[in-house]
């Protein structure tokens, strides 16, 4: 496609503004903006060249768009995505995808039927260190992964305060949707859907009616057990920190936004360049420069994939497709149900067979 891709960015809040800036700076894109709130639209309307709409439907009716980027409060994701897909537009939607996972699955099907590029903004899958973690995991070099710790901490709610949409459960607020969604989405990427969720704790600390901390235990059939530990009322972190630790039968791996640390008990032919003992790789060496950098390569890179897939008529997302985000929505629903009922959700995971001990002589054989 030689023509520019025409993208409408909907919602000019914290995420929306930065999406708008990155999309607008892309050389292959012509960008239109849309936001209902007065102030930002007023100021931008007088100072930038782009057309700005105050109403989503009006924008869809008036503009010949190829795609939309949706960065509105989470409750609006499902209806806005539906409207866009029904008009045959490609969709990039912020996370979490839909508050009701049934919507997520319906929209996954709709996007597939229409062969649209349908992507959700789980940007951690574009962080170099987590990509390296995924690559290493898929080689099997760590052996059988048995033990996982998935964490996220940051300073979002540090005192009781007046609410906005992020502080209302029905709007998609709370630490689960905002923070825990990220490590859960990474776990889904690594291991798929959990068989069972138990021990979920979703509790307020400073907020009223929404969770400020989330803990849970997840189990996969033939896979690991994972502990989730998330808290967005932790001032000791300058900004959000997400980290995953795994222990396997042949070693250990740790990743956060900056680095990926691997310990191998024995080298593995499937993973050249990693010897026995520790190997550390940094995101800085695992990442390519984007066309435009605003707040981390991963944010630009996910939009680059989306724009590229739309421009090339690929008909599906490169990464973070709706199906993968629906998996995370469903996993979050399991946590909510588990926390509400106190009953484990799903069936106890079928445990993997332990790694057989090497024959070590007569006594071991007999046992």
């Amino acid at each position, binding site marked *: 496609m030689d023509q520019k891709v025409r993208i409408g960015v909907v919602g000019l809040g*914290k995420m929306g*503004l*930065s999406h*708008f*800036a*990155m999309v*607008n*700076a892309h050389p292959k894109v012509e960008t239109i903006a849309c936001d209902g*709130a*007065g*102030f*930002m639209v*007023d*100021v*931008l309307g*007088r*100072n*930038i*060249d*782009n057309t700005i709409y105050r109403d989503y439907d009006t924008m869809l009716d008036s503009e010949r768009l190829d795609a939309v980027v949706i960065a509105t409060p989470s409750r609006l994701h499902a209806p806005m995505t539906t409207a866009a897909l029904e008009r045959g537009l490609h969709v990039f939607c912020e996370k979490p995808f839909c508050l009701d996972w049934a919507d997520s699955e319906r929209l996954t099907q709709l996007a597939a039927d229409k062969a649209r590029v349908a992507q959700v903004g789980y940007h951690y899958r574009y962080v170099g260190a987590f990509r390296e973690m995924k690559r290493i995991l898929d080689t099997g070099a760590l052996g059988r992964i048995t033990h996982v710790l998935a964490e996220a901490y940051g*300073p*979002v709610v540090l005192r009781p*305060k*007046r609410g*906005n949409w*992020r502080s209302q459960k029905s709007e998609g607020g709370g630490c689960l949707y905002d923070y825990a969604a990220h490590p859960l989405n990474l776990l889904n990427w690594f291991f798929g859907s959990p068989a069972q969720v138990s021990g979920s704790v979703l509790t307020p600390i400073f907020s009223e009616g929404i969770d400020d901390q989330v803990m849970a235990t997840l189990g996969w059939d033939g896979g690991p057990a994972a502990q989730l530990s998330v808290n967005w009322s932790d001032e000791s972190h*300058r*900004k959000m*920190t997400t*980290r995953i630790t795994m222990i396997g039968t042949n070693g250990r791996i740790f990743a*956060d*936004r*900056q*680095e990926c640390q691997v310990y191998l008990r024995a080298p593995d032919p499937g993973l050249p360049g990693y010897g026995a003992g520790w190997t550390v790789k*940094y995101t*800085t*060496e695992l990442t390519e*420069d*984007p*066309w*435009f*950098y*605003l*707040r981390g*390569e991963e944010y*630009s890179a996910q939009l680059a994939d989306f724009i590229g897939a739309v421009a090339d008529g690929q008909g599906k997302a490169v990464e973070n497709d709706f199906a993968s985000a629906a998996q995370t929505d469903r996993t979050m629903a399991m946590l909510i149900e588990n926390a509400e009922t106190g009953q484990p959700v799903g069936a106890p995971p079928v445990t993997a067979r332990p790694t057989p001990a090497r024959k070590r002589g007569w006594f071991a054989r007999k046992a």
Partner: protein
Amino acid sequence: MDRLLFGDNQFFGINHMSEEKARAQAMRFQKTDAIMDVLDVAHDEGIRTFMCTTHDRITEVADRVRADPARYADFRFYPCMPYAHKYANAVTDHGMVGALRHFMPSDGVLSTALTGGRALATKEVDGIARVLIDMEMKMFDGLQTPVIFLQNVFTDLLLGMGFTRALRIFHDHVVTKYGVEPAFITMNMPMLLEALEKEGIERPIICANINKIGFRMSGGFDAYLDALKSGRVRAVAMSVYASGAIPPDEAIHWISELPGVESIVFGASSAANIRGTKALVDKYMGAPA
């Protein structure tokens, strides 16, 4: 501008390689004394410019410098504003308009304008921007601030949105009110240079990543070199070591041969690293431009 400027990332738990290291640094520099000790080492080595975010804690550093004019007679700050987290938190707490109102003088026309709920006139938007700049500058009252930078997250957000008139507002206010040089930090130097020229800002001071391996030089390594060679930009190079990927001697030698680079900004916490970089800059770059 001096050849070598001292940066402040290391003092505030910012490390592009390791969270663990960042935390260790945050612990070490909790007390202003620890920051002053490192600044004094740099100062004694002849590095007299501190390029720093308008972080709350810089207020304490500014107070120390103000309190000892004899020792810090030639000490100068290059403020980099705004400290974005302060605003991000205020926006989360009060919403966009509420946050702005929070920062405006409570009895002034701007606060009233924001309360009204009507569309703001262009000159009111400009006025708000100027109040915000002045607020950031308060901590440097009576101190030397010969160059004032706009932080990269702000520069690049405005650049990406095409709201480049705001860059012009910043430029003009710094010139008119403070009588010093406005400057811009960016991760997208070639694109910014073009936008600033369109706003009529000639030969801007731009601080950007400039290093031999092209680390975080968005818009492309070659486009950076072309911009530098064109003579259209006065560059301050940051990330010259590319977070440790390039050996110091090689990194500084390469920079020294680039036209258009007037200064290097670097951060370090140990006397050995400060002295090492200073010696290399003296060796390869000599006297200030």
